């Protein structure tokens, strides 16, 4: 699934990253717990989280995750954006609850990691 379709499906907004429209996403994982994210070994993964701090971006960097959706209307801080840009990570802000965002994306065919 293309990232541009994901962004439009959950009424979200991309706040940083370039050439993101056609990025191909196959799997999604939703968690506020970075310890759980760090156990994943999966490519083409979208991270959906309500945890909005620098460690969200660090965790993505270490896990080679290039696309993050911040749910519950959380806004990325300037230092998060800078760190994301340094690592070619796309941050997407979504106004919906995690339950709603996940439900919408599951329906469109994004696959669970397990």
């Amino acid at each position, binding site marked *: 699934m293309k990232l541009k379709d994901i962004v439009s499906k959950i009424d979200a907004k991309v706040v940083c990253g370039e050439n993101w429209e056609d990025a191909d996403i196959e799997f999604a994982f939703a968690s*506020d*717990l*970075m*310890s*759980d994210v*760090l*156990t994943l*070994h999966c490519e083409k993964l979208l991270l959906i989280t309500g*945890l909005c*701090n*620098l*460690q*969200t971006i*660090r*965790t993505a*960097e*270490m*896990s*080679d995750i290039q696309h993050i959706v911040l749910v519950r209307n959380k806004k990325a801080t300037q*230092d998060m954006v800078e760190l994301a840009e340094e690592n070619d990570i796309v941050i997407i802000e979504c106004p919906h609850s995690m339950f709603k965002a996940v439900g919408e994306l599951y329906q469109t065919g994004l696959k669970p990691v397990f």
Partner: protein
Amino acid sequence: MQFVYEVEAGNFTKAGNASSDFKKVLKQLNVPPQIIKRTVIALYEGEVNIVAHSLGGKIECEITPDHVVINLIDVGPGIPDIEKAMQEGYSTASAAVREMGFGAGMGLSNMKRNTDSMHITSSKEDGTTVTLKINLT
């Protein structure tokens, strides 16, 4: 080749700086991506542990043609029961650590899973040293 990073206790803004830097080094050396990922995930978990649980410390990373060896060394206060600390789900993390998305009691076991060997020594007097080894061949 050896790299040494100082790690500040409690500073979550800087947590991950060492892991990020060492990841760049491994990339420059053309280490295979899967090995880089395993290495930096274990290193990052260890770095967060020093920030979250210790009074500060340092990380020594050594690269040879055959392996990467990482020493995560802190100055205390030590792990009273290592066996218990290794159990998934067991954690002594503070509320502040949990707010950062950690403290689920997964760190040490995830470090073990991503490395070829892991050794922990710990005492009240000398603090904790975790040695990780990742084979490159």
